[in-house]
């Protein structure tokens, strides 16, 4: 609760973050968001020098077997990191009823090759402090083979990466062990509220679309056979549409030779580039609760379907997201934590890939304040739809997004990621150079317009994890309510 002392200080001494356009707002009921607890005295020395950061550019090329090569040479420290992206080998393409096959295949690739046992692989990597992992998300379009090593061990690292990629044997014995320990982990993660809220959110927002997959079912995992993994690897791990990004203490010429020598024999399969469909539109606004007995907090995710990465609204929606909940200067953090003390944190995020993604706000609050916290959170979403963002607040967010590029220059991998994004989404060559310019042209009206378009109250899904005894009656007030148990089974539906 805001105290009289804070109000007094606010009125007498300060420039409010959001007070820049009071005249405009006067015609726009209701009032601007309550961000009064952040008080800008304006006495700190801030440089207004424009630090224009130009990202170093990687060099790109192609191998004979179709692999696209992106290299960012950077000799500051004696280490090299790489990431090989293999489109089509992600869990997105798993058949219904086989969700997780891609993930199981990826993990099992490093459990043995024609010349190395799983223990030999671990020992060789760890004695040189190198890393190497094969991963494939449950809803990802791609699999990745990623690794890093000190420069002196890069040759050995690529030997191992090629072996795991091209010669995995999927030993039966190791597969049985993998199933056993993974089943235990799948069971254990159901005790974590953050997992439960993500799981139900994905289910509600994506329905049966592959984008809703976030974890395997133990029964599905136990049904997988070695033959399925072998087949998946054979058909999906092809170089046709792959790219390898390498950053660090290596020249383009040396990187090219290295990849050619280890992966030159990886044969093209004539596989077309995979495509991904959008999920079906989610239904009307609802509330979904996972009843987790003995919870002392309610974990919330509130959001909607949004856009793909190449949507024309991407920049405006990203900027809107920064205003609402992009970090500790976002409105959600300012209001729910700094002003009201309901939570340790409150944020929002935009997830946009090759298919239509989501926008969501999230926070965890003590059970006793479930109702006022959710009321305030929903009110923030109303505000961003109904009231144009004050010019100063928007300018601050733009500056923050642009200036933070300087920080990424410390990490060659991070810089390279920008260009991998460009390659994945076929962005224009000058995309990152022109990012500040594009951001600067976005107006408060455009931000309001994307808020209205995507943060539609009629489609807003509220997902909660908490103790049903404490919060069911409260949540009913926010819409038709479905209650699930911690195993993910729907228990009841309540229409108020």
């Amino acid at each position, binding site marked *: 609760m805001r105290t009289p002392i804070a109000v007094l200080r606010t009125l007498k001494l300060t420039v409010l973050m959001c007070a820049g356009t009071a005249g405009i707002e006067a015609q726009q009921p209701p009032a601007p968001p309550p961000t009064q*607890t952040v008080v800008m005295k304006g006495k700190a020395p801030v440089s207004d020098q424009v630090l224009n950061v130009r990202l170093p550019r990687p060099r790109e090329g192609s191998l004979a077997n179709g692999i696209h090569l992106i290299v960012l040479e950077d000799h500051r420290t004696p280490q090299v990191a790489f990431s090989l992206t293999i489109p089509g080998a992600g869990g997105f393409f798993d058949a219904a009823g086989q969700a997780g096959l891609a993930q199981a295949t990826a993990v099992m690739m490093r459990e043995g090759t024609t010349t190395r046992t799983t223990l030999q692989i671990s020992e060789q990597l760890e004695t040189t402090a190198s890393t190497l992992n094969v991963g494939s998300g449950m809803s990802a379009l791609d699999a990745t083979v990623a690794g890093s090593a000190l420069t002196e061990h890069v040759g050995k690292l690529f030997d191992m990466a090629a072996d795991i990629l091209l010669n995995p044997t999927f030993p039966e014995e190791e597969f049985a062990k993998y199933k*056993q320990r993974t089943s235990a982990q799948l069971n254990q993660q159901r005790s974590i509220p953050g997992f439960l809220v993500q799981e139900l959110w994905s289910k509600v927002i994506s329905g049966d679309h592959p984008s809703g997959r976030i974890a395997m079912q133990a029964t599905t995992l136990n049904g997988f056979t070695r033959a399925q993994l072998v087949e998946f690897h054979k058909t999906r791990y092809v170089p046709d549409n792959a790219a390898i990004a390498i950053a660090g*203490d290596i020249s383009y010429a040396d990187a090219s030779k290295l990849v050619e020598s280890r992966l030159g024999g990886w044969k093209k399969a004539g596989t077309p580039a995979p495509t991904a469909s959008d999920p079906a539109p989610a239904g009307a606004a609802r509330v979904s609760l996972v009843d987790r007995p003995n919870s002392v907090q309610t974990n919330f995710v509130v959001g909607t379907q949004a856009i793909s990465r190449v949507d024309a609204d991407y920049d405006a929606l990203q900027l809107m997201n920064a205003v609402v909940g992009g970090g500790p200067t976002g409105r959600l953090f300012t209001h729910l934590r700094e002003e009201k003390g309901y939570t340790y944190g409150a944020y929002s995020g935009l997830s946009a890939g090759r298919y239509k993604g989501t926008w969501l706000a999230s926070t965890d609050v003590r059970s006793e304040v479930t109702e006022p916290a959710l009321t305030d959170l929903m009110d923030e979403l109303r505000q961003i739809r109904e009231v144009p963002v004050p010019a100063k607040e928007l300018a601050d967010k733009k500056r923050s997004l*642009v200036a933070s590029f300087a920080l990424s220059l410390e990490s060659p991998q991070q810089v390279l990621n920008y260009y991998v994004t460009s390659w994945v989404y076929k962005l224009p060559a000058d995309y990152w150079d022109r990012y500040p310019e594009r951001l600067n042209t976005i107006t408060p009206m455009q931000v309001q317009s994307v808020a209205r378009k995507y943060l539609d109250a009629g489609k807003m899904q509220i997902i909660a994890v908490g103790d049903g005894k404490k919060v069911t009656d409260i949540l009913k007030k926010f819409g038709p309510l479905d209650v699930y148990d911690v195993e993910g089974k729907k228990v009841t539906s309540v229409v108020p």
Partner: protein
Amino acid sequence: MKRLLAFSILLGASVLSAQNKVTFTDTRLKNGLRVIIAEDHNAPVFSIAVSYNAGSRDERKGRTGFAHLFEHMMFKGSENIGPGEHFTLVFNNGGNMNGTTNKDRTLYFETLPSNQLDLGLFLEADRMRSLEITKANLDNQRNAVQEERRLGVDNNPYGKTFEAIDSLAYSNFAYQHSVIGSMADLSAATVEDVAAFFKTYYAPNNAVVAIVGDVKTAEVLEKARKYFEPIPRQKDPAPVDMTEPASSSEKRLALEDQLARLTRIDISWVVPPSSSNDDAALSVLATVLGGGRSGRLYENLVRQQQLASNIGAGKGESRGPGLFRFFVQVAPGKNPPDAEKAALAELERVKTGGVQDWEVEKARSSARRQMVSGLQSSLQRAVLLSQYALFYNDPDRINTRSKMISDVTAADVQRVAKQYLNEANRSVIVTTPKAAVRPGDK
């Protein structure tokens, strides 16, 4: 004025790879503040880390959680900075920042584009000099901290276990209680407590500032004097008695957890402080047992015997007596005592059979890689320089730590295992799931 950065500039300034060493200056201002500066012009960025000699070990009974609650207060404004203005200015100018508290210190840090050097120094100096301590700010952050506790401890499986590890292993109150503190103590903290804590612990003579990155040493030093030197020195806080009485027998505790689904075993041994000559050998022992998938615990208990579904071993950094720890997540259907016995058997195997050369080599490589990776981040260097200066009066440990690990022999590892990881020195917590009430139950 525009300042453009080209790729060639980045490559031209490659000083780190040549030396693989952090060079720095180390100056004490008139008021006792230690200022460490390391230049690195590879990216247009710098970081500031301020380590205060104030951790939960400095708390007294009835005021647990205080050092951390205080950390939150440091973002609520000072003479020239409004509540929340600190982080707003840092983020709005493209930077990053945070604060963190542990048993031994409270650390504040910022990373900013290099044109904001004055801003970073001003922000840290203003709150060191003139923190605004009001009841409104205190109540507000008390709520946030209590939520942090619910998030990290009370609503989490094994949250109670994490607190019990220290309270069982240690007898000295300094390390025995948790950093987050108890709800009752957090509620009892008063404005007077905060003011007294500030005066004693947030004094320039009780802190180390490290600045690393795209800055000029002379300019930083001049500005550091301008912003920090007027802050008056205070009486040094009384040293904390960290003496840990020797234990004569194993301590055990059984816990039930309504939020957990699998049995978990935590085994801890009290070991010497990180300043000890045996610290490096204990770190290597932790790598031998718990490092990656080739570590003995994972290989034997998880992969071979399938007694555990997850496992770990480690030893954190500690100014006072430290803990060498195992945790074992018992696989479903397996007998917890069997898993505990098997984990302890791996330790016995080290004591009786020693360790192999490749296992020691693994620890050496890991230390070297960590050092090299650390050179990429100005923040990591700033944090280590300020902490090593505060903890060991030795900021150069950033350069020598990897050599300390390299000098460890297989015989050293076996010796420290025998010397410190014994039954009398051990505490064991077994946490078993307690069935929760399901929806529909009466």
